[in-house]
């Protein structure tokens, strides 16, 4: 049953859109405001790695299970991926240095 992993691969790819967009845009924004040295690279990279890691974990955990159980595991992993992403967003906002003009 390759359908469930394929469908969730697309959904996890969607979950990667925002972290990748952040990684591309945030350094420029920080540089524009003069805080280019404070780019939270570790958080940005973790935000990209999280959906990938969770997809692989869900793939491994769901192996040998019926399709519904596999879909359940993937759904939980996808939901956790988004929850962690919002946690990263909040963390970036919290550690951002004050912008001075």
């Amino acid at each position, binding site marked *: 049953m390759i359908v469930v992993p394929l469908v969730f691969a697309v959904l996890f790819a969607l979950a990667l859109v925002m972290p990748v*967009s952040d990684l591309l845009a945030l350094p420029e924004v920080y540089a524009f405001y003069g805080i280019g040295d404070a780019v939270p690279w570790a958080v940005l990279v973790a935000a990209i790695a999280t959906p990938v890691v969770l997809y692989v974990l869900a793939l491994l955990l769901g192996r040998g299970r019926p399709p519904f159980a596999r879909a359940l595991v993937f759904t939980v992993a*996808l*939901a956790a991926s*988004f929850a962690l992403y*919002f*946690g990263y967003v*909040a963390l970036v*906002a*919290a550690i951002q240095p004050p912008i001075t003009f």
Partner: protein
Amino acid sequence: MVRSSDGPDDELGDSDDEALSWAGDEEQGRAAPRLGSTSDEVVPAAEPAPSEPPGSRRRSVVTGALVVPYLAITVGWILAVQQLSSGSVSIFTEVLWQFGEFLAMLAAPAWFAATLSLTRDSRPLVRLGWLALGLAVLVPWPVILRLLAALQTAGGAS
């Protein structure tokens, strides 16, 4: 054959008894008919087999104890998504953001339900481990960080 009949009233009963007896039963100590027992003894029913497997009570306790933290996390994420905003004008990003917020709110109940469903035949410790991992992963950081910032601001103002 077994008993002699004393009168016409006993004929019917005796014929029934004869039908339920075999020749030679008296020698073997079986005076009564083989069927048609007259005793009203109630045979005690066999002990019902335990319907719950061993350890299920402990598992239920573990599960019940973790319902409240999971509910708290769910409420935390509902509050968190009220504070978050994509800040994007792109409709695609906005839809994706809303979808992510919906899933973030759903994450804790989904983790709880999936753990209950997938660890049905596992040991209580395994279920506890997965539920504890869910609590650690799904902490609603946006709310907690906002709360910490508010406390810091309040501390700095006073």
